[in-house]
């Protein structure tokens, strides 16, 4: 009815190419989508002709009264959608709904049956509007609604089709969570409603019964009134029976979901009032259901007075339909909104950025042993998403970028795919092709037809990409998992000339789903899929119109770019974009250029780059803060020629004391240097930015960076005394006389890390540079720690051999004696962390060396 929805199947990857593995190639997890070197240079130009400026989430309902209608958008800001026609798009997304739910009187059954249907998840594209959407359909129960169901849908709408396609599974699992909140709230509300209704009915029946008795007495058994009353009574009985059955059905909703850890968590969060119902729900699902309901009813009688129900219910168009919030429990509804907000926040960025953060997260999750050293706490980075990320870490759902390359277990997938899959659902799935017989879908399609006939027939631009039904998901996804799901289109498109897709050859010869064009604008991306398939087909014949960029070949240009841009930067800092910057700020800047939404994480980080808010002790040291600190660090490096020594002290675990009269200056220096502290701690426990009393020995154990007040008071002299006493354990940076007293350092590592002639201009860029170097250092420290032969003597008597092996090993890693102290310190930290876990409660010992310090002057 609406054009011809093209179903894009997630097909299984062809097996070709598996045999060849290039031993030198990088592991796949390091795949960063490369920018296809098209003629047009700037990949960030906004070519989208979408009428909205940024991604948003739309919730729509197919109202039985007015048809498809948008309910709300997230973010709830009219500017977001711009001129985008929400009504029109609601119509689109609701029209693809199949809703296999059969509610009503199934054949062979006299009373209505509730189906616990699975949600459907489809991808929908509207090339005319420039909008692409992940659409998540769900139904909520409403006693007053036709067939007791109200179809809703939540859609993630983006101008970037790739984002929708590639993040399908992530979106699916996130939206499923939101949907689960809604539905569990709805079940409770529905059960509540049923109970009330039942009480009404029972009350009505008792009234009717009395009336009937009265009629019989007055008019005899066979009078018309008496017969009417008897019929009415019988109807009432039937109605009661039906409602009881419905209640039984809804309350017997399997407690299977309760096992889900996430769900339980949310269950327990809600107020006690609902948990009462919850209890009853749980207990009801046995044979004694009716009984417990009865007692439940009795208990509630005090709070609810039954009402007489009129024989004829109001016309369906007269009554007011319940709002979504009413349909679900309010707390569940707000939870849902929270979840949707989280989704919006974590997917609003450019796909490229999402990829990188996904790669980042996936890699970090593999580095549990060393990530404590320099990695910021990721949870705080995205604010609200922490919950969601921690959950997804339980069931690994990074399906598009399946880094490990090994197929994920089936179990882990069922958790994110099936949502409401219970017994009735099976029959609904099987009966899905016949779903047109169900009155509700018929209704909707009819309604849609009549209302917007004209526009539909003319519009051919609507394609439903990958109409992923739950069943097809189950099968195709599992197949496709080993695969790196390749998207191919069923019907080949006629226009295939403007493709930019670049299949990348990786070590195992598979095509990586991360296509290089993920950062480009939207020209022709609709036709990418067919081409991709074409490219695949003629893979052996070396097709011309794709750039055969393997990762290995791809690296040098990337590097070159980097250098190029770096040098360009020197001349024109405004134009030149360093590679790392492209990844973070500029992208964000461009993609949300026109959006005045200053709450965006990325844009704030850009704007506040120069306004350094000092790192405060006690608050969580976030990545954001660290990025800001990069600017101070850069300034420190340029300003102080002995920056290398200071940094090497921090890296090798020697406490650095910054001594000064002015608090601001000292704090600024502390802020500049804290990014170099290994194992900074979640709240920066190892930093004391301003101390005005003498420190103790135990403080040296705790703090690796101390800002110390220089005062002329007696307290000041005792401070100086403690400085003098513990001088062998600390390095002192005097910011008044600009001197540094510390052991010498002549290595190359820190000079790379903190080159005062660096071309890097931006703080956040510099931070990323530091982060990169430190990651490398960490990797080496990891190797050093876990190499058996450099720690344990093979022969007790040959202690010396260990030392020489150690030195050789470090040399192989490219480190001289100068760096060995740093590596050794990191290694000790890793060892302790590995042995004790992250527990910091234990009384740590404190290592030091006996080395001579020198005084460095500016």
């Amino acid at each position, binding site marked *: 009815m609406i054009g011809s929805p093209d179903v894009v199947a997630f097909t299984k990857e062809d097996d070709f190419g598996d045999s060849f593995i290039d031993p030198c190639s990088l592991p796949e997890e390091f795949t960063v989508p490369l920018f296809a070197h098209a003629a047009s240079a700037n990949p960030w130009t906004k070519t989208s002709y979408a009428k909205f400026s940024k991604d948003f989430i739309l919730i729509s309902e197919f109202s039985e009264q007015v048809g498809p209608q948008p309910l709300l958008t997230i973010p709830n800001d009219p500017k977001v959608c711009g001129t985008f026609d929400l009504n029109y798009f609601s119509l689109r997304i609701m029209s693809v709904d199949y809703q296999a739910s059969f509610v009503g009187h199934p054949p062979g059954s006299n009373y209505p049956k509730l189906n616990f249907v699975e949600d459907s998840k489809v991808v929908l594209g509207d090339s005319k509007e420039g909008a692409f959407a992940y659409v998540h359909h769900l139904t909520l129960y409403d006693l007053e609604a036709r067939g007791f169901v109200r179809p809703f849908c939540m859609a993630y709408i983006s101008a970037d089709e790739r984002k929708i396609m590639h993040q399908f599974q992530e979106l699916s699992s996130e939206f499923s969570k939101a949907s689960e909140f809604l539905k569990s709230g709805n079940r409770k509300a529905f059960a509540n409603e049923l109970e009330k209704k039942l009480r009404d009915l029972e009350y009505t029946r008792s009234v009717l019964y009395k009336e009937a008795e009265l009629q019989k007495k007055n008019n005899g058994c066979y009078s018309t009134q008496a017969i009417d009353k008897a019929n009415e009574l019988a109807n009432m009985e039937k109605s009661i029976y039906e409602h009881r059955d419905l209640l039984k059905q809804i309350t017997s909703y399997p407690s299977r979901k309760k096992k889900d850890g996430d769900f339980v968590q949310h269950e327990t969060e809600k107020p006690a009032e609902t948990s009462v119902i919850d209890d009853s729900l749980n207990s009801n699902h046995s044979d004694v259901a009716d009984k417990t309901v009865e007692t439940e009813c009795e208990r509630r009688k005090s709070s609810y007075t039954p009402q007489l129900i009129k024989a004829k219910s109001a016309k369906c168009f007269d009554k007011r339909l319940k709002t979504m919030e009413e349909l679900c429990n309010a707390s569940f509804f707000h939870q849902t909104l929270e979840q949707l907000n989280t989704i919006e926040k974590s997917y609003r960025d450019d796909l490229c950025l999402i990829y990188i953060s996904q790669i980042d997260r996936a890699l970090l999750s593999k580095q549990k042993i060393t990530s404590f050293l320099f990695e910021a706490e990721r949870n705080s980075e995205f604010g609200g998403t922490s919950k969601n990320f921690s959950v997804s870490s339980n069931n690994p759902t990074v399906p598009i970028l399946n880094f490990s390359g090994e197929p994920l277990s089936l179990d882990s997938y069922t958790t994110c795919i099936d949502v409401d899959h219970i017994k009735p659902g099976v029959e609904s799935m099987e009966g899905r092709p016949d779903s047109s017989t169900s009155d509700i879908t018929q209704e909707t399609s009819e309604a849609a037809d009549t209302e917007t006939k004209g526009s539909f027939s003319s519009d051919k631009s609507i394609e439903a990409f990958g109409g992923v039904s739950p069943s097809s998901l189950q099968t195709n996804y599992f197949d496709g998992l080993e695969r790196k799901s390749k998207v191919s289109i069923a019907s080949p498109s006629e226009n295939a000339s403007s493709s930019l897709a670049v299949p990348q050859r990786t070590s195992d010869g598979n095509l990586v789903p991360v296509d290089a064009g993920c950062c480009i604008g939207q020209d022709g991306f609709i036709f990418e899929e067919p081409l991709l398939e074409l490219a695949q087909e003629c893979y052996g014949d070396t097709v011309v119109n794709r750039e055969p960029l393997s990762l290995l070949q791809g690296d040098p240009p990337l590097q070159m770019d980097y250098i190029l841009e770096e040098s360009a930067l020197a001349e024109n800092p405004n134009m030149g974009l360093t590679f790392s910057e492209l990844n973070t700020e500029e992208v964000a800047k461009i993609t949300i250029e026109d959006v005045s939404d200053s709450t965006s994480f990325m844009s704030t980080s850009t704007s506040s780059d120069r306004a350094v808010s000092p790192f405060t002790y006690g608050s969580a040291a976030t990545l954001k803060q660290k990025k800001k600190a990069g600017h101070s660090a850069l300034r420190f490096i340029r300003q102080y020629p002995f920056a290398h020594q200071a940094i090497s002290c921090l890296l090798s675990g020697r406490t650095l004391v910054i001594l000064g009269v002015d608090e601001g200056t000292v704090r600024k220096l502390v802020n500049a240097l804290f990014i170099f502290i290994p194992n900074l701690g979640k709240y920066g426990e190892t930093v004391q930015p301003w101390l005005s009393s003498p420190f103790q020995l135990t403080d040296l154990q705790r703090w690796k960076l101390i800002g110390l007040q220089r005062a002329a008071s007696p307290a000041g002299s005792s401070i100086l005394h403690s400085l003098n006493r513990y001088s062998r354990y600390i390095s*002192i940076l005097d910011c008044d006389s600009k001197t540094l007293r510390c052991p010498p350092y002549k290595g190359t590592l820190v000079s790379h890390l903190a080159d005062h002639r660096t071309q890097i201009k931006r703080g956040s860029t510099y931070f990323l540079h530091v982060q990169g170097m430190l990651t490398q250092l960490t990797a080496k420290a990891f190797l050093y720690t876990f190499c058996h032969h450099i720690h344990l003597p093979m022969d007790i008597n040959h202690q010396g051999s260990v030392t020489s092996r150690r030195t050789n090993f470090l040399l192989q890693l490219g480190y001289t004696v100068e760096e060995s102290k740093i590596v050794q310190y990191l290694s000790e930290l890793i060892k302790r962390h*590995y042995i004790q876990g992250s527990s910091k409660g234990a009384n740590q010992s*404190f290592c030091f060396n006996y080395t001579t310090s020198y005084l460095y002057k500016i």
Partner: protein
Amino acid sequence: MLRWILGGREAQGTVEKSAALFIGEEQPKNCFTEMQVLKGHFDIVRFLVQIDDLRFASAGDDGLVLIWNVETGDCLFALRGHTQQITAMTSYTFIRGGTAHTALITASSDRTLSLWDPDSGNRVQNISDLQSSVKCLLVLAHLDVWLSGGNELCVWNRDLELRCKMVHHSDAGISAMVELPKNFIAAAMDKEIVIFKLNLSGSDIAVMAMRHLADHHDTIRSLIHINDGLFASGSHIGELIIWDSVDWTIQAYEHILWEEPARDSQSEFKLNHQKQIERSIQHMSSDGEYIVAAVGSGLYVYNVLMKSVVAYRRTAHDSNILHTMLQQDSLMSCSEDGSVRMWELQDLPLPAEPASSGFFGMFGTFGRSSKQTGPPAKKIPEVPGLRSLELIGDLIGHSGAVQMFLSFKDKGLVTCSTDQLLIVWKDGELQSQLRSLAVFQKLEENQGL
């Protein structure tokens, strides 16, 4: 002001004068590159007692006894019961039911004696009706009894039952005791050493004073056992006497004077007003052949077999030395100045060189008769084999006087101090290796990372 902080070399007084004492930050022979600070006491920590290879107890003026694990630094038990400062503490190992048990005995100013079980942290026994506080404790393992000394000398069995008691007429109580062969005990009481004999007749024990050795001219500060044949005592004015354990005769008599070279005397006097204290023999320790005596802030090493001085250093610390330890060619000392210093006995390249740096009076006497004769010699005779005491490292961490230390060999060194802290000093390299071992062990258990 910062100048003196940063310029280590221009630090004060004594260090500047005797440059050799300033070791600086480069200490290649100092293996203690890891420290662990143990907190738990609320007052001066004075005593450390080793319980076994892993555990030790600490006690001090807060009346609290803490039991620690030296490897992990964990406080295993806090033994509470004494209301006043601890005056003496010792461990007592005995065999019961085929296994060795170690008990801890503590004495306090509140005139109580307690017997503790360090495995459970329980107070097994407590004696609270003592007439005076106990100043020293001595375990006689072969008799399975132990003695407490104060104004009275008591003999107790392992269950803290009083076996024998002897009250002294003297005001000054027993400050130290050593065990001598044949069930004799030497006890230091003010200026005298009293020899007691324990008479064992069946299960009864009787104590009898045998002899009073009154050769010291001032209060005896330390009394130690050297070997089976010898014991030594040191007095407040620097007298060091080596005694024969069997017939209690003087084997050697040294009067350490620490005489000043004329030129330096002025400044030296300014720094240290109390010259007498300066010579007090606060502590002695011995390995059977050598004795090291802490004389004021100086160290004095004496060979008891050769009856000759081996090495000495007049100002080994900035302040009085409180505890010493001798191990082969190296020795350790801790002082009121808050540091622990490690020394090495080194052969002198030029034999007579150190003689000019300091003088000390010395003449050996063999027998009582000659002890009062003659003034001390002004010059040291050319002692063959005189060695020098070289500083090889120092441990700085405490902010108050280091009262005592206890060595666990490879596992580390524990120091206790007036600053209420205990510090375990460890060999960083060794600890690193141990951690590596633990890592690889865990790797094996976990079957990989």
